[in-house]
Each structure stands twice: as structure tokens, then as C-alpha cells.
């Protein structure tokens, strides 16, 4: 039940080149910054990054793009990062744009044992190309497949020794759903607290989902 606290460098060594990696965060808020810095420092290559956006060139997931760690992106928005757009236009990275709600539901389906989701989002648009359309009670829905990854890199507010996690304000975003959808889940909390400090009702990610915790930064 009790997790090991490993360094960000040790975690970055686990994330092998070519891995698919979900990264929590919305424009950098709620992203695991120390893990991202460690991946950049390790010189990771060929990653597929699944997340809401690619933030900004010097913030969050944008640092991975800037450092050339990324081969493929699955995200809802890249408009805040000119580097992502430039690399996409040059054919240097492959970008799949996914509506934000659909991205969330595909991840949720991947982590929940569902074969996919039906959504009206994207019907009649480019997003529908190559996807199966079904009619339910007279309304049209797209079949959207589940998404899973080799790793989920999460940012949490508090973690206890069992890996139970809390989040704060808008830093939750994709983190709680990504916690379900990867083979190896690495959480970078702002603080680690003893078991019992987080009341059961405040736990938003049960510790059983978490593989590793990132140890506190040395100071």
C-alpha cells in the first residue's frame, strides 16, 4: 500500500524513449514541472504526449516540445505554442487535435474499461472523418475510442504515503482522469503528508492507482 518516493530523475529514467505519456495540466497549470524538467534533462526522445494543450514554449509540456522530446501530440489546443505549430507545419511532429470534452471522455473510457464513448461533439465536422456514426433515439453520435498510455505524469496538491491524492482549484483538470488510464502512474505532489492527514472524503485519486510518488525537492 505504501509507495516509494523516488526522485524526478529516477522517474524520468523509467519513461523510455518512444513511450506514450499522458501529462496533466491546462496551459501549464497542474502540470508536473519537476518531472518535465527531468525528462528534458534526460534527453527523452520520440514521446507521444497526450494532454489538453502544449502550453507555452517555456512552460509545462511546451518545454518537452522545445527540447525535441516529442514525436506526436494528442491535444485539444496548440494555439498558445508557436513551436508546436511550426513543427507540425514542417512535418517534424504529428499532431492529432481532439475536442477537449472528447479527449477527457476517451481518457476516462480508457481508464474505466469502456470500449469507447458516443458523443455528439464533432458530428458534421472534420473530427468525424473516418469515424463511425450511430443513431440513438433519433440523434447522431460519433464512436470515439478509448485512450490509454504507458505513463501518466500527474501534478497533485497533497499525497499521503499510500498515494492518495488531492488537487487544488483549476490544477485538477485532466490529472484525476489520467490517473486511471496508464500502466505506470507517477504523481508529483506539492506536499507529501502522513497517512490520515487527508480525510477519506477529500481524496480525489485513490492511492491504489498511483505507482510512484515524486519525493520532495531537496532544499
Amino acid at each position, binding site marked *: 500500500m505504501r509507495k516509494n518516493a523516488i526522485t524526478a530523475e529516477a522517474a524520468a529514467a523509467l519513461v523510455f524513449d518512444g513511450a506514450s505519456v499522458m501529462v496533466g495540466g491546462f496551459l501549464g497549470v497542474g502540470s508536473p514541472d519537476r518531472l518535465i524538467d527531468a525528462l528534458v534533462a534526460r534527453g527523452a526522445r520520440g514521446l507521444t504526449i497526450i494532454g489538453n494543450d502544449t502550453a507555452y514554449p517555456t512552460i509545462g509540456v511546451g518545454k518537452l516540445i522545445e527540447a525535441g522530446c516529442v514525436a506526436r501530440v494528442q491535444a485539444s489546443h496548440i494555439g498558445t505554442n508557436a513551436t508546436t505549430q511550426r513543427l507540425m507545419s514542417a512535418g517534424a511532429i504529428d499532431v492529432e487535435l481532439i*475536442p477537449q470534452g472528447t479527449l477527457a471522455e476517451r481518457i476516462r473510457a480508457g481508464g474505466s474499461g469502456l470500449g469507447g464513448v458516443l458523443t455528439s461533439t464533432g*458530428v458534421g465536422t472534420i473530427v468525424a472523418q473516418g469515424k463511425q456514426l450511430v443513431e440513438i433515439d433519433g440523434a447522431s453520435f460519433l464512436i470515439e475510442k478509448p485512450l490509454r498510455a504507458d505513463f501518466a505524469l500527474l501534478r497533485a496538491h497533497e499525497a499521503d504515503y499510500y498515494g492518495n491524492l488531492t488537487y487544488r482549484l483549476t490544477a485538477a483538470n485532466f490529472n484525476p482522469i489520467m490517473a486511471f488510464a496508464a500502466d505506470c502512474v507517477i504523481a508529483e505532489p506539492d506536499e507529501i503528508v502522513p497517512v490520515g492527514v487527508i480525510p477519506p472524503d477529500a481524496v480525489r485519486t485513490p492511492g491504489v492507482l498511483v505507482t510512484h510518488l515524486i519525493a520532495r525537492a531537496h532544499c
Partner: protein
Amino acid sequence: MDAKEIIARRVALELRDGMLVNLGIGLPTLVARFVPRGVSVAFQSENGLIGFSAPPPEGMENSDLIDAGGGWIAALPGAASFDSATSFALIRGGHVDLAVLGGLQVDAAGRLASWMIPGKFTPGMGGAMDLVAGAKRVIVAMQHAAKSEPKIVETLTLPPTAARRVSLIVTELAVIEPTNEGLVLRERAPGVGMSDIFDNTGARLIVPENTPEMPLSSD
């Protein structure tokens, strides 16, 4: 009063007490400044918050608290935070009463294009496709023409955001309602003549006998 303020003021008159409202990035965010007296609405930010005000006092920004455009916000008493799957369940599930979005084009069928210009501009759709597909009411708040190129056109030349017909188009020249019969001119902006509207519109407009002047405040 500039074009953006005219649009924001007129859209604000569509707000009703108790509504849950999502304002898109850019021009639509201005609507929050003109909420009519006596009307109380809750604003949703799709990155995971209901109940915010912007911006916080200088120096009191919280690193875990931004809006969907990446700007600092403050949470109001009674605010609720949640993850991205919950946020988009609110949007797709019809719990958002009104979405106000910017636009690149709207056509005679009332379809909106707002998220890409092929070959030039590919920021991604973010949450726009979900909002148009799922909000109870969708208002497009945009300037009537872009460099004298009409944005209201017979048929979209840009990729649509959704198949759905939007509820209302508000520009600095006019209020236009897409209907089964086509685009109906509902109001003209103060001091704007019919020819100004026709000259800047690329689609056929249905003009009722009475086209009142656009109100810009509820007083």
C-alpha cells in the same frame, strides 16, 4: 464606444438570472463586464471552475487558478472546482444555459466556423466543438466583417465547429437570428443603416417589417 463594446453590451442583455454561462476566449470575455443590474449569473471556466471573477488583486494571483485563456482569476464565494471530465459533462449534458463564442464565419444555415483556417491558422478547437454541440443556447459574438470581407456567408468556406444551428449572431452592426427559413435581421445597431448591413453581409437576410434599434443597456 468601439465595436467590441457594442457587441459585448448587447450580448449581456441575453443574460438571465440564474444562468450558467460559458464565455469563450477573446471578445466574449468582455460580456462579463456588462452583466445587467439585478441579474446574477454564474460563469463556468471549462478548465474546471464555476464561479470566478477576474482578475485577482495584483500580487495575489494563485498559481493553481486560471481561466481557460490562461489568465489569472479569483474564485468567488460558493465557487466549485472540478476535473475536465466533469467540466465537459456540464457542457455536453446541457447544464450550461448559454455559451458565447467568437467566430470566423457563420453561414445561412446558422453553422459556425471558429477554429481553423486551413494552411494558415490551426490552434485547435479546444472546447468550442463541445460547447456548440452541448450548450442550451449558443450566441456568436463577432465583428460583422473582417477587413471588409463578410463573415456572414451563404455557405461556410472554413471547417465548421459543429453541425448545429447557433441561436443568435451579435455584431457591431446587427443582431441576426438563424431560423429554418434563413437568417432573420432582428436589430440594427444605433446609427447603422440597412445598406451598411447589406454591404457587409455575404448571405441573404430576411428583413421583417420592423427592425428595431439594438439596445445597449437594460436601463
